[in-house]
């Protein structure tokens, strides 16, 4: 009895704690600032799309949205490609090399990527890769490689060995086996890992913050931060920008919930 009551109460509290802030943001996108301050949870007096219109009109959300999309897409694509090739090779190598390589990449799991901000910055200044989307993509690939290789290697190791041996007998080389057998089989694992990587790249703040200063190269998290300074009091614009920035994640969450949750938790467990 006591258990059931407290269970319900606690669940209700957490549910409210999630629903209330989300509703304030969603409703706020249709309101004027003053309405957000005085009645944050009320329905807007007039449902108006003025905020969205202003945001698009001022043009400072479309470009970062496009930049974020480009950076996230190419980072994920190349990381998955490079990591899956490496992971497959490592999982097929029974020699010492495989173990050494695996250890080498595991080392990257132990060193937090944030530690490298200074050397990466100095290196990128030298290579003229600051204020460049390619620079951001390279950083993302480097940071997410260890965890991706780790997740995918464990996946490839669990596949039945016989399949690959048969392919070998039939004369398929390592790359052919990877392309025709391993890749098709790993679609769910790649999907989950890909979503996990996409979330990381889409949300990253630290590296863009130090590598990007030009406004036409900014990604969404940077733009959101700017809103705080630029519109110190305009929460209506800020909420609208947050809404726009969250749309891809929310869509992915709705339509690919299983892979989404699997990816984010695999990243946590393996990391």
């Amino acid at each position: 009895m006591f258990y059931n009551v407290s269970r319900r109460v606690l669940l209700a509290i957490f549910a409210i704690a999630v629903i209330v802030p989300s509703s304030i943001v969603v409703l706020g996108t249709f309101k004027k600032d003053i309405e957000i301050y005085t009645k944050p949870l009320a329905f807007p007096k007039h449902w108006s799309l003025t905020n969205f219109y202003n945001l698009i009109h001022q043009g400072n959300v479309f470009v970062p949205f496009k930049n974020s999309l480009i950076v996230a897409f190419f980072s994920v694509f190349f990381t998955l490609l490079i990591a899956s090739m490496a992971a497959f090779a490592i999982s097929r190598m029974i020699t010492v090399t495989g173990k050494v390589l695996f250890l080498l990449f595991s080392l990257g799991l132990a060193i937090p990527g944030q530690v490298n901000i200074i050397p990466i910055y100095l290196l990128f200044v030298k290579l003229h890769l600051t204020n460049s989307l390619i620079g951001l993509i390279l950083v993302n690939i480097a940071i997410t490689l260890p965890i991706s290789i780790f997740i995918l290697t464990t996946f490839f190791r669990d596949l039945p060995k016989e399949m690959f041996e048969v392919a070998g007998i039939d004369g398929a080389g390592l790359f052919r086996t990877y392309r025709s057998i391993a890749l098709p089989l790993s679609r769910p694992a790649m999907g989950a890992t890909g979503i996990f990587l996409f979330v990381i790249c889409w949300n990253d703040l630290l590296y863009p913050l130090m590598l990007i200063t030009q406004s036409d190269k900014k990604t969404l998290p940077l733009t959101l931060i700017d809103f705080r300074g630029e519109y110190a009091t305009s929460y209506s614009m800020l909420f609208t920008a947050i809404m726009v920035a969250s749309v891809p994640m929310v869509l992915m969450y709705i339509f690919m919930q299983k892979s989404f949750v699997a990816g984010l938790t695999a990243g946590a467990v393996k990391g």
Partner: protein
Amino acid sequence: MALPAVAIYSFLYLYPAISNLLYSTQRWDGVTKAQFVGLHNFKYLATSDDLFHKIVANNFRFSFVVVILQTLFSLMFAIFLLKNTKANIFLRTLFFFPTILSSVSVGLIWTFLYNPNFGFINASLKAIGLHKLALNWLSDGRYSLYSIAIAQIWFHTGQMIVIYLAGLQQIPAELYEAADVDGATRWQQFRNITWPMALPTTAVVVAYTTIQTFRAFDLVYAMTQGGPMNSSDLIVTSIYNMAFGAYKFGYASAESVVLVVVVLVITWIQRRTLRVDYGSK
């Protein structure tokens, strides 16, 4: 086939990590010529830099609060939501929702909630007559760090619930059935079945949360930028400010070497203690 990965990883991960060690022995403003100072940066960090000591203490406090509460909450809610009923599945989806937002969004939303004048939290507290509890959540140095910790817990508890659910669903139902037959109370079942059986999962959750809190940057940067008076400064925010605010690249590198050491030591201690715990049960 592993070649592209090895190349990128060596060039953009290992090489920077090693040059970081090199920078940490230098005094360098990024413009004039770097000056080799040996271990001086570390000596100064360890003995004379009171601000850095405060920041490390902040980070430990932040980690402690977040790890304890987030683990407790996620275990509790995972137990509450274990059965696959429709309501439970809906609540799991709802609780996971904050995880899909970006950290900057979360930080800025909470900045609004915490606003002392028109923020939702103080407005609600005042509405029910609790004027005394309407604090300056982010601008009072006594509360800023913990206010950010609450946002962090709100952000990531849903993700940890999912990890716990996966762990709890592995526990054989027969154990609980047998306990029911023996007339064990709910608390006894938790203590003697759920807790020991879930220990490996707890180890994962605690380890992940700890690392996450020592990497924390985004929320602090979005909410307080470390202020007021460095009361919510964490190690990574301090490295960032030292390098890109004060242009002390060598010194900032030394701080990041300290961060690696702290993270490695904590990981090692946790692996040991949690493994021993598990073995003895």
